[in-house]
């Protein structure tokens, strides 16, 4: 009985599971992050279409929660691979500045800054890094928030500034996602 109640509580408090939103299911690259909906799309993806997308993330998740924008990056990867684009042709960089820096912190650093709470984006960031998605933290933000490289989830990189990272990636042919 206690176990059942505990399990229910766990399920209710768990970050939204891929299957839980009606019409959305797990994606092929990261099955438990960024659920996707099938779409009868009018916008053709000609064979050979390659995506290079930069996301700009300034907002942070509620303490302990999953960053909505980091989840959007995962969904973008999932849904384009589901639509037939090879995974190597969906290149994503997530450029983080401002309050969003919080969600890139290592567990112990995050907990210190959030009353002991766990970083709800940690799993998503690790899995995205593992799938080849790049993360850059704005160095100016880091300085302002007293964040050092050693405070970041391993694999997260630092750029001189978010502006620098956006400029460099757009020069490399990345398109900018506006939200």
């Amino acid at each position, binding site marked *: 009985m206690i176990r059942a109640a505990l399990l229910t509580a766990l399920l209710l408090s768990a970050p939204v599971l891929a299957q839980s939103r009606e019409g959305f299911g797990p994606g092929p690259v990261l099955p438990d992050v960024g659920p996707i909906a099938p779409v009868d*799309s009018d916008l053709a993806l000609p064979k050979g279409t390659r*995506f290079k*997308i930069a996301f700009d993330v300034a907002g942070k998740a509620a303490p302990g929660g999953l960053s909505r924008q980091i989840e959007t990056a995962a*969904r973008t990867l999932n*849904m384009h691979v589901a639509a037939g684009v090879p995974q190597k042709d969906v290149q994503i960089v997530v450029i983080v500045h401002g309050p969003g820096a919080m969600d890139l912190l290592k567990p112990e650093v995050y907990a210190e800054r959030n009353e002991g709470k766990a970083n709800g984006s940690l799993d998503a960031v690790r899995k995205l890094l593992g799938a080849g998605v790049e993360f850059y933290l704005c160095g100016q933000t880091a300085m302002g928030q007293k964040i050092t490289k050693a405070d970041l989830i391993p694999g997260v990189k630092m750029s001189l500034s978010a502006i620098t990272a956006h400029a460099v990636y757009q020069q490399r042919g990345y*398109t900018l996602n*506006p939200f």
Partner: protein
Amino acid sequence: MRALLIAVLLAAPAAATDGPVFKGFGTHTPVEYNVAIPKGMVLRHVYDVTKAAPGKLNPGFETAARFINSHVANGVSERDVAVAVVVHGPAIVELTKPEVYAARNSGTSNASEAMVKEMLAKGVRFLVCGQAANAMGVKKADLLPGVELSISASSAHAILQAQGYTLNPF
């Protein structure tokens, strides 16, 4: 008295100009501009719209019409101004058929419908985020004819930018 007149003149916005492509919306003001538009330049521009505007013209859509009106009024050929509007979030309902809109909005009508239809007829592209549509329970058949459905808003933006559309930053 004269001071009052001057104050009124200073405070009044410059007169809005209607047309030449769309009348009654997307008005613009004449500008003594310094940024030249080279002859033959093709402008491909994409807007991102999420907010709905119940009971009035959706300002995000209208801005796209203003872009066309103001450039054509200033000598750019209409065929050289291509505009796309990527829509996700609540604004999607303002691209649905009248009966769908009414069913979702207590029987009211969509104040942006006539504007959207005119814009579609003039070649403006409206691209709906398939992920958001799905989450909102909006199906392809619910959309006004001519509105396009994309895998996602991110997908549409990536494709349009790769095709040379510039992203409007606000």
